[in-house]
């Protein structure tokens, strides 16, 4: 295993190329070189200049170079990762699980996974041609600053492929972690071939403790008639910054179900993009977020209808407590000629304290004339009458608030894949509500008080 070959130190303006622990294949080295150039040439995002960052001034002070060099992969599973692996999704099993941290892929107790998901480096070695045609083409380096950075700096991740016509029996699980004082740039590439189907669960995690940066990039290719159910669960420690891009291309009749749960971290900027490239393709997204203390969640989504006759919808439910804040910008873009598009974006916010804030900005950009597109957003407090109703039946105020908040998320939780994953999602929400209850965030007066 060679050491990382960063001769120059990383700075905020310059991202020297990293290398996979066993060395980069040629195409990756070229891709990184282009990414490093893109990174150097684009200015650091600014909350005063860039619309994307307007409500997230934290970006102005972030410096990826302030984190420690990644070091080499742990030979033993760090405790925080072990705890995640033992969690409610343990049933998925080690042979369907790939784990990475800041240094690269981390071996799990069950040995190296076989089958649908393999560690990035191993997959690149086995099938460089296939993956060179995909990696960096969906989430290309020029897309965003943090995609460029991820490409230049990635040291691990996972490659997932389901062959033509196959239905994966078990879900695949990817755990991307980052340790204290580190920065991690995991990369996931997913290829679901024609008519194949898969459930993929990604978890973004870090231990409680010092500052860290987790910047995953996920790129997904869904071929004709392919079906992917994709779960993203962010449960980082309270001092982790998350910068992520998930970008999906859908061919004709492909079907994408995205479910996300954003619960941890200090602050986060997250992009979810779907490109509807084929007629008859369908994307159904529903996400949830529970914020507390000073947490800040900035989620930006794109439903890009390039082909006509496709359907996309998105529902995002947010509850913000204490001084936390949610920013949502959801764009439906219907390109010229994408007739018979059917698209919908909706953001619902529940404010659990007078200091909590939610900004919501769903927008439509429509260049075709025969389409059905709607968007909406709401923000409100817990309804007094609902609380009274619960209380009049013997439920105390805190439990009543909990019940109503849990109910607020019910349709999103119920949209997670049935079985272990849905139960896990339920437990994530309940755990977050437990934490709110512990800090007294649910004990406050009536909704309007």
């Amino acid at each position, binding site marked *: 295993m060679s050491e990382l070959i960063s001769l120059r130190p990383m700075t905020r303006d310059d991202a020297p190329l990293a290398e996979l622990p066993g060395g980069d294949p040629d195409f990756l080295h070229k891709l990184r070189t282009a990414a490093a150039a893109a990174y150097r040439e684009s200015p650091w995002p600014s909350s005063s200049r860039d619309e994307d960052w307007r409500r997230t001034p934290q970006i102005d002070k972030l410096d990826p170079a302030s984190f420690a060099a990644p070091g080499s992969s742990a030979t033993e599973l760090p405790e925080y990762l072990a705890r995640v692996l033992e969690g409610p999704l343990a049933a998925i099993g080690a042979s369907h699980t790939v784990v990475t941290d800041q240094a690269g892929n981390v071996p799990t107790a069950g040995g190296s996974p076989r089958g649908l998901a393999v560690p990035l480096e191993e997959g690149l070695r086995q099938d460089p041609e296939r993956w060179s045609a995909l990696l960096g083409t969906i989430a290309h380096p020029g897309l965003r600053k943090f995609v460029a950075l991820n490409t230049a700096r990635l040291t691990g991740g996972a490659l997932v492929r389901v062959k033509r016509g196959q239905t994966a029996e078990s879900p695949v699980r990817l755990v991307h972690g980052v340790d204290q004082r580190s920065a991690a740039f995991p990369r996931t590439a997913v290829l679901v071939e024609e008519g194949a189907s898969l459930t993929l669960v990604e978890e973004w995690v870090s231990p409680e403790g010092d500052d860290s940066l987790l910047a995953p990039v996920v790129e997904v290719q869904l071929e004709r008639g392919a079906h992917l159910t994709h779960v993203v669960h962010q449960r980082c420690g309270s001092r982790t910054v998350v910068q992520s891009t998930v970008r999906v291309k859908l061919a004709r009749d492909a079907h994408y179900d995205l479910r996300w749960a954003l619960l941890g971290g200090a602050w986060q900027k997250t992009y979810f993009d779907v490109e509807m490239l084929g007629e008859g393709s369908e994307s159904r997204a529903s996400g949830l977020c529970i914020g507390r203390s000073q947490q800040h969640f900035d989620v930006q989504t794109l439903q890009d209808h390039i082909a006509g006759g496709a359907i996309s919808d998105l529902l995002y439910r947010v509850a913000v407590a204490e001084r936390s804040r949610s920013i949502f910008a959801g764009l439906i873009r219907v390109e010229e000629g994408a007739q018979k598009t059917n698209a919908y974006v909706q953001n619902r916010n529940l404010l659990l304290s007078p200091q909590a804030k939610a900004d919501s900005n769903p927008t439509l950009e429509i260049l075709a004339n025969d389409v059905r597109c709607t968007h909406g957003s709401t923000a409100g407090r817990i309804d007094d009458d609902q609380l*009274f109703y619960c209380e*009049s*039946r013997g*439920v105390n105020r805190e439990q009543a608030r909990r019940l109503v908040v849990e*109910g607020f998320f019910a349709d999103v939780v119920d949209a997670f894949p049935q079985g272990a994953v849905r139960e896990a999602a339920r437990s994530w929400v309940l755990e977050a509500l437990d934490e709110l209850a512990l800090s007294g965030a649910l004990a406050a007066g009536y909704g309007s008080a």
Partner: protein
Amino acid sequence: MSEAGVSTLEIRDLRVAVEGKEILSGVDLTVPKGEVHALMGPNGAGKTSLGYAVMGHPKYQVTGGDIIWAGQSVLGKPPEERSRLGLFLSLQYPTAIPGVTTTNFLRAALKGQGKELPAREFLKLIRSEVAALKMDQSFMSRYINDNFSGGEKKRMEIVQMAILKPEMAILDETDSGLDVDALRTVADGVNRVRGDGMGILIITHYQRILDYITPDRVHVMAAGRIIASGGSEVVAQIEESGYDPMLRQAGIEAEAAASAAV
């Protein structure tokens, strides 16, 4: 237990205001355990407000008088405590809580009352009570009152009453919106618990339900106070000539009947 004060609901000279506007202007009403009383009166008289005040809805501020239940004032106690003490209010317009299933709601309610049951017994209990009100079992997994029809909501209130087993229930127009069979079912349910010594105050506009549940006493409210009380003959009187004669006798202008002292 028949000693005075025990399990009796006593409302004494109760004054209630909403957002500074007086709605109840001195209500006196006593419902002893084991008795069924009816409360009638024109729209806007303050009947629903009385129920809310008894149950402790924070919007209905008590500005005078007292509400005494089982010998103790409940003023200042939160609704959940009043519920635990054995009071129950069946709402005129039951609240929907999207996302909260009937089963989860009832589980939370029983838990809150300290009457938690093992999972199997709990399910058995709610299944049988849902069946007793001739409701489909699918209501257990539906969100409580969400998109229920008017009559289904009323039935669900009675299901809850049967499960929570209060000692004193106020049924606010539970009969409105019920079809004739449901009315019988609800009446049977009420008569069943009445036999257990429960006190009940039925708020209604119609004689119909009182044909099935014979009230021990009938009270008439107008302009935020009780203007007449009597036996079943009061109901017949109202059916025959409306509220006007009573209002005149009480010195209330018909138009003012609906809104309390301004």
